[in-house]
């Protein structure tokens, strides 16, 4: 039984990546990544999620080429047209093409996801591993701060930050990131507590490695699998919170397209011109589902449990 993913790899590369005896650290690392990739491709649902993600990227990158109308300028004479003909998904109250707005809105979604991930995850890892490794009152303090943030429902806290900071995509990103890091800190701390007592960390201490070296080189790599899985599963939630903020008018400033705002704007017309809020809603659903599937697939590969 040959995996298609192995079959499509050029034979020269394949040999190098599957070599039993790697000749450099780079080769060893890439080989390991390659094997994880192969395992990932064996999961059909995970591949579906990946496909959805790739479609999202494609649309974001090639937005001008797959749309025929401007997403921000509307023709008032073509208000609220049903799907079909020139406007594949219809138009909204201001005559803007919904398909275009969804496609350009994918850029907003991608920016939000990416920025939240690279902001919240490092904060969480650093706080969590430091707390877990140092212990004592430092751990207590950091974890209580984490608990304080966790005590608030995410959307409510994000709302509070966004309302305080004002509308706009940067503030929305900041607000969401500030509510997303606590679970990562918790996960990182839990992993750190386990890893801290292992023999390999003891061996590193015996050879005189500094605490920083142990934290960064030994402990953080062991936190990565759980964190990667958690972050990808969270991305679905981030999209929804961003949509929620947009729905409440605290996200991206109009006329920039953002899916949540589109759903909000279309509320009044939901019964007669259902397409105005339904299609952005479907877009949110598909991308959230995609990230969930990717997250599950990554968990099976990185953090496998016996079947």
């Amino acid at each position: 039984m040959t995996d298609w993913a192995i079959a499509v790899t050029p034979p020269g590369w394949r040999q190098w990546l599957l070599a039993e005896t790697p000749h450099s650290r780079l080769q060893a690392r890439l080989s390991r990544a390659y094997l994880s990739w192969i395992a990932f491709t064996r999961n059909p649902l995970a591949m579906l999620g990946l496909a959805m993600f790739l479609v999202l990227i494609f649309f974001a990158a090639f937005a001008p080429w797959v749309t025929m109308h401007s997403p921000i300028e509307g023709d008032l004479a073509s208000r609220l047209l049903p799907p079909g003909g020139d406007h594949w998904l219809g138009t909204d109250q201001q005559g803007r093409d919904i398909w275009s707005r969804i496609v350009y809105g994918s850029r907003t979604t991608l920016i939000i996801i990416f920025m939240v991930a690279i902001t919240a995850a490092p904060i969480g890892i650093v706080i969590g591993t430091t707390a877990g490794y140092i212990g004592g009152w430092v751990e207590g303090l950091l974890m209580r701060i984490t608990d304080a943030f966790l005590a608030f429902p995410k959307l409510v806290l994000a709302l509070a930050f966004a309302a305080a900071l004002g509308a706009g995509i940067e503030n929305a990103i900041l607000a969401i990131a500030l509510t997303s890091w606590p679970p990562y800190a918790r996960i990182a701390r839990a992993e750190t507590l386990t890893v801290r007592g292992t023999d390999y960390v003891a061996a590193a201490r015996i050879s005189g490695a500094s605490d920083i070296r142990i934290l960064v080189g030994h402990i953080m790599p062991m936190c990565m699998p759980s964190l990667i899985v958690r972050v990808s599963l969270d991305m679905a939630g981030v999209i929804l919170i961003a949509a929620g903020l947009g729905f409440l008018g605290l996200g991206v400033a109009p006329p920039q397209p953002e899916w949540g705002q589109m759903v909000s704007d279309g509320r009044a017309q939901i019964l007669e011109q259902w397409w105005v809020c339904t299609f952005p809603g479907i877009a949110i659903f598909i991308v959230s589902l995609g990230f969930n599937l990717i997250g599950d697939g990554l968990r099976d590969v990185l953090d496998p449990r016996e079947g």
Partner: protein
Amino acid sequence: MIEIENLSISFGHGADRVDAVKNVSFTVAPGESYGLVGESGSGKSTILRALAGLNPYWTGRMTLAGHALAAKRPRAQRRLVQMVFQDPYGSLHPKHTVDHILSEPLTVHGFDDIETRVRAALDRVGLGPSFRFRYPHQLSGGQRQRVAIARALILEPKVVLLDEPTSALDVSIQAEVLNLLTDLRQQLGLTYVLVSHDLGVVAHMCARLSIMRTGEVVEIASADELSEGRLLHAYSRQLLIASRGYDTEAIAAFGDF
């Protein structure tokens, strides 16, 4: 080489306090192989970990190669003593290649010729260069333990602490690893402190040993005395009988210590 005087180690406070090691003393001459024998809870591993510098909370005196050891160890002093752990599956970082595992101590101590030393270390433990960029999960238990030994030797220590180094290995692999350890001690003039619950391993590897029970030294004997059954304390004798195998009469005579 090693002098331990009135070493005491306890964990916890108040009602939960456990006195793991109570006033233990022994000495190890340079180049000697010394055994610490006991069952679980005897404190033997606790002593080893304190010697290795993993536990700063102890009282008493510990001297290593003439240096009095303190709770905090300066980095350079770390080179004197290294350790091989029991579980080959837990003592190597799962995400580090063998090369990384061996070169890290060298990087920490600022060596230049890391490449040469890593290759020499692998060679010394009987692993060829093909093992250099493998991950631990690609190695067998015996191979992992060899890497652990290579790591322990890479900083050229004077003392190597061995915490049940072969108890997790198959008996045929154990023989290979014990032979390797014997050879290395002769070649490099090392001093060993070996902790084990297996009297056979201790009799084979060590010249002298302390038999421990619940944190105290019950008897200090030579390996010859052990082999010839000339042990004095009742607990030591019971341990020796138990190590010989199943014997219904002997078991009936076991006391509770």
